[in-house]
């Protein structure tokens, strides 16, 4: 997009969720944002508004951000009802002012889900995702010198599929978009990206059972196969991975029924 074409500045009204702290009541407050360059990012626009608030001695709007280039998963705004705003496959930080009309009222809300409590304004606590990861989102591997390249052969299709799943930046937009606040797309991506690769086989069943269990315990809802999650995902992770997660979970539950348990589980080499 040429900058010439988008050089006309625009003004919008922001309608922002303000909440002083966890468990405090919150409300929407309107702020004018004038003379914005269309090529400004949405977060830069918030920076400008916050500067003005600070100068006026008011509390700036708290919002989460880090890389601002769509790779870290920290930014987390629901803009006009859509997590990460109007564009497909784009995080909040990569959303630009040119996507909004002059004079528009833009509603900004935090991600809403019981397991993602609001910390302040638009910032939510998404450490529930870390707990799911800790339950099984890893492999056990020998540390030390790197293994020979290509020592383990992996088909191109599997490598590509695993990479599709590994795109997940853990932002939580899937949960925010889902009417049930389900974390299935996130869990599906994490379970699949390890489960498709040979390195992930040793802990495959244990992983899927533990991660789904933790997801349920943390209070995320169930999947109703409406695919709002994949539509909101800034990395466009496919809901095909949810189908794969379901299949993996069913198979692992079934296998766990007939699995022989070792006589003793303590001791050994670690």
């Amino acid at each position: 997009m040429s900058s010439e074409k988008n050089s006309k500045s625009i003004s919008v009204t922001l309608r922002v969720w303000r909440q002083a702290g966890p468990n405090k009541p919150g409300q929407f407050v309107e702020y004018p944002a004038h003379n914005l360059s269309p090529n400004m990012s949405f977060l830069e626009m918030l920076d400008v508004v916050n500067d003005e608030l600070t100068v006026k001695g008011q509390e700036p709007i708290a919002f989460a951000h880090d890389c601002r280039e769509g790779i870290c998963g920290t930014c987390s705004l629901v803009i006009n009802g859509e997590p990460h705003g109007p564009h497909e496959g784009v995080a909040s930080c990569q959303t630009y002012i040119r996507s909004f009309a002059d004079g528009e009222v833009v509603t900004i809300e935090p991600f809403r889900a019981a397991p993602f409590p609001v910390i302040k304004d638009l910032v939510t606590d998404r450490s529930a995702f870390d707990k799911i990861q800790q339950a099984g989102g890893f492999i056990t591997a020998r540390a030390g010198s790197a293994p020979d390249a290509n020592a383990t052969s992996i088909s191109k299709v599997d490598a590509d599929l695993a990479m599709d799943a590994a795109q997940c930046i853990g932002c939580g937009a899937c949960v925010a978009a889902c009417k049930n606040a389900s974390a299935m797309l996130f869990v599906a991506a994490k379970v699949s990206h390890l489960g498709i690769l040979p390195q992930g086989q040793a802990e495959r069943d244990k992983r899927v059972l533990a991660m789904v269990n933790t997801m349920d315990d943390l209070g995320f809802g169930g999947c109703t196969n409406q695919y709002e999650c994949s539509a909101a995902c800034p990395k466009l992770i496919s809901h095909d991975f949810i189908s794969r997660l379901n299949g993996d979970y069913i198979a692992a539950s079934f296998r766990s029924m007939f699995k022989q348990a070792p006589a003793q589980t303590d001791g050994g080499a670690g």
Partner: protein
Amino acid sequence: MNPLGHLFCSTIGRKVIMAVTGIVLIGFVIGHLVGNLQVFEEPDRINGYAQFLHTLGPVLWVMRITLLVCAGLHIWAATVLTIEDRKARGAVDYRTKTWIQATLSSRYMRWTGYVVLAFVIYHLAQFTLGSVQSASYKENLPEYTMNADYHVMGIPVVHAGTHVHDVRSMVILGFSQPIVAFFYIFAVGLLSLHLLHGAQSLFQTLGLRNSSWGKALRAIVTLACLAYFLGNLAIPGAVLTGHLKLNPASASSTP
């Protein structure tokens, strides 16, 4: 957790229960429709068929109990999941509520499901128990005498001359009341809508759907739901438009 715990306590397990019971219920509603469409043939057909089902005795009861258990589990899982899903959203909901790509049928699964449940209760009261519209209930109608044998897979199961319930007249008299016919059409319409999402969703739940054949699945399910709706529309539709009439013998003796 033991495997039964996985099935009944996890979100995925409960969805699996819904999918499997959904498959049984789909099998039933299709079989039920195919059986009912015999109403368009000579009266021997549907009346012989109804008599045949009753001669099954214990087998009929096994089928009835299986269906009741499946319906019960399906509704239990739907209700428990719905309550949990609402709770997961949290105390404060979005101010701007939007849908990005969820289909219409998927958004109304709870509505279509519970209205179908209400309909099924009325339907059983009308045609199975006779507690509503009892004047036209099969046990209160003159019996029908079979003109010829009724065959199932080439075996004669109901013989000519047998006195059987006049199910055909019961159905036609029942649907002659427009309000009953319209409620039926409305309910099967909602059931078709329920299945438009449900019959695709179950493949996803069982881990069998992916985008390599997801479009084909959607097309097949859409056509099947349309055919199912039209097939069900045909019976009350034909009664209301006068294409399906009482057989002269029973018409003269109707109460």
